[in-house]
């Protein structure tokens, strides 16, 4: 039993990791079929885990209602919303014109759009609070940021077409260089962590820490 808890996951990770690594260099059909097969299995596993997630969600909120913790009303709303949407979806399906379709258009879509829209306000307050040039480098960054911000909208083009060109140059050159530097570093770090996982040095995925 200890073997299946400790050694087997590490052996499995090694086997799967090396298989997927070798697959990248094999153009034969068997490699594509293997990849598709494994990915389909992954989708099946995710499907099963969704059931577990739903049980966890309901358990969490039912406990909150039972213990009447502050804010348990929100938990009641969550439970009722979950159950009614599940039942209506099973009975009437989820296409436009069904009750779930109505809830999608008149509840879900506006709420999602609202949450995204709050970003505008948060950006404004965060930018006002944090964009202070305390050093020369910060000043250079601030000037570039401000010019890009104004150059990417019609008012910037109205003030001067050079603003728009400058904003484009900033996005395509210094911004690209910085982005690529970070991405390159992240990619190398991901390779290193992958090597650690394949060879069993990193075992976080097993749970239970080290």
């Amino acid at each position, binding site marked *: 039993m200890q073997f299946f808890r400790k050694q087997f996951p590490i052996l499995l990770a090694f086997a799967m990791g090396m298989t997927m*690594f070798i697959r*990248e*260099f*094999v*153009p*034969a*059909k068997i490699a*594509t079929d293997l990849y598709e097969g494994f990915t389909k299995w*992954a989708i099946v596993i*995710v499907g099963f*885990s*969704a059931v*577990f*997630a739903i049980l*966890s*969600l309901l*358990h*969490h909120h039912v*406990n909150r209602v039972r213990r009447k913790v*502050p*804010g348990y009303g*929100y938990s009641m709303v969550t439970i009722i919303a979950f159950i009614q949407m599940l039942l209506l979806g099973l009975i009437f399906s989820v296409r436009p014109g069904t009750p779930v379709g109505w809830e999608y258009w008149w509840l879900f879509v506006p*709420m*999602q759009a609202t*949450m*995204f829209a*709050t*970003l505008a306000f*948060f*950006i404004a*307050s*965060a*930018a006002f*609070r*944090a964009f202070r040039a305390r050093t020369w480098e910060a000043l250079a960054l601030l000037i570039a940021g401000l010019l890009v911000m104004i150059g990417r909208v019609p008012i910037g083009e109205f003030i001067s077409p050079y603003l728009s060109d400058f904003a484009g140059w900033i996005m395509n050159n210094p911004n690209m260089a910085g*982005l690529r530097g*970070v*991405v*390159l*570093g*992240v990619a*190398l*770090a*991901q*390779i*290193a*962590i*992958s*090597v650690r*996982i394949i*060879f069993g*040095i*990193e075992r*976080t*995925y*097993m*749970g*239970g*820490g*080290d």
Partner: protein
Amino acid sequence: MKNNLSQAAIFFVLLFALSLAGFAQEPEELPPAAGDPSEIAALQDADIVIGLEEEEPEVPVTTVPLPSGVTLRDLPNDDGTGLYLTWEAFPEESPELTYTAYLAETPNGPWLEAGSIAGNESYMEDHGHYFPIFYWFKKSREAKLHHVLLVQDVATGEFDAKGNAIRLPEPEGFTVRPNVGPKNKDGRPIEPGIIDPDTGEEKVSTKLVEIQPRTIGELYVKLEARLGDATAEYPEVLSATARENWFDVSKTNMLILAVLFGATVLYFISRARRDPNLFIRKINGLDAVDEAIGRATEMGKPILYLNGMSSLADLSTLAALNILGRVARRVANYESTLVVPCRDPIVLTVAQEIVKAGFADAGRPDAYNEDNIFFLTEDQFSYAAAVCGIMMRDKPAANFFMGYYYAESLILAETGASTGAIQIAGTDAVTQLPFFVTTCDYTLIGEELYAASAYLSREPLVLGSLKGQDMAKLFMMVVILIGTLLVTFGMSFVKDLFKALG
């Protein structure tokens, strides 16, 4: 000194090995070109003129140049479904000139149209090959242009006059799929809307059957040039066998790089076992973890920890879970409360195990509360709204945002900032970094998140892999620098080392 020398040695070995891989590049030998200007002029003098436009009102000459230097080869590095044709390109070719390849399974047909290109399309450059090492900066010939036409995913059957499919023999274990277009009541493919005058019913289609065998065996190809009504067919019928390849040669340099990188990481891991005192620079965000947990404990408020918006398949989530383990241990030591709302169900199960183990390692298994690690929702903004609600109601004193985030990052961080919590973020999502930097007290940028497990644990094995990763980064930096300089002076061999070969 000894360490520096060995590191330098490893670096130069990597560079030399890659140079050798690059020197192995050699495009396939193409037949001698008929691109000699005098030959072209001779062809032109021989009344083979392309699309002359006469100013006088005469009938224009529309004879068509004969394709020359035509070769048919198996497409390399594929699953056996491809062939490709190359033939000489003239210096200026008209877009009205079209080249069409026809395919058959026997030398005498029936011929099926396999592909067509315009005369000013689809070129392949032949740059020759590199000289041996002493002249590595020079190529064997100037760039030469050839037309190329991929004969791939070959449709190799059609319906005969009676509507019966002509099929290739099916090799064992491979699949053949019939035409999936609209069909008549007898199951035969039809041309919708076109009535056959003989039968009065919708016309049976002669559309190519979509057969996709895995190895299509020997096939025959002929090439025709067409300009208006005039055509010129290459006199020879070419044949080639499409084969399934078991190794993608074009990725050889990638394989060498990957193996070398992995070997470097493993080497430094083994070295770290012998000498565990490896230097790692200060990362302020990770040093502040203790401070944040201590602050939360003093205020009697919980600690909120988010693992990001991605699944366990994402390495940044694994890195976040790694840090969670350390944080859980410290929270248990401080006897504080840790709340971990999860977006992914699999991450939830792993997070519960990690926190439980962290509390157990700290000797406080009784303090572990499974209800504090729970699933919220998989929907992005619903999750953000729920977490913001937790922040506004429970007012955690410390917020950790570790993992991969999307647009909701600013909503989470700004809401946390409004509650006065100390915030530490770590993500490799480059588009979200600016938001975290402006709203959080400390931010781990990109690979600092991945270095966290090494930094916090100081385990020699993990530190060693970090060292190997840094060596690889140093190598990449030098290669980029040298390559950029060489390309500036017209020498592209370093750049070519990192391209797909062939």
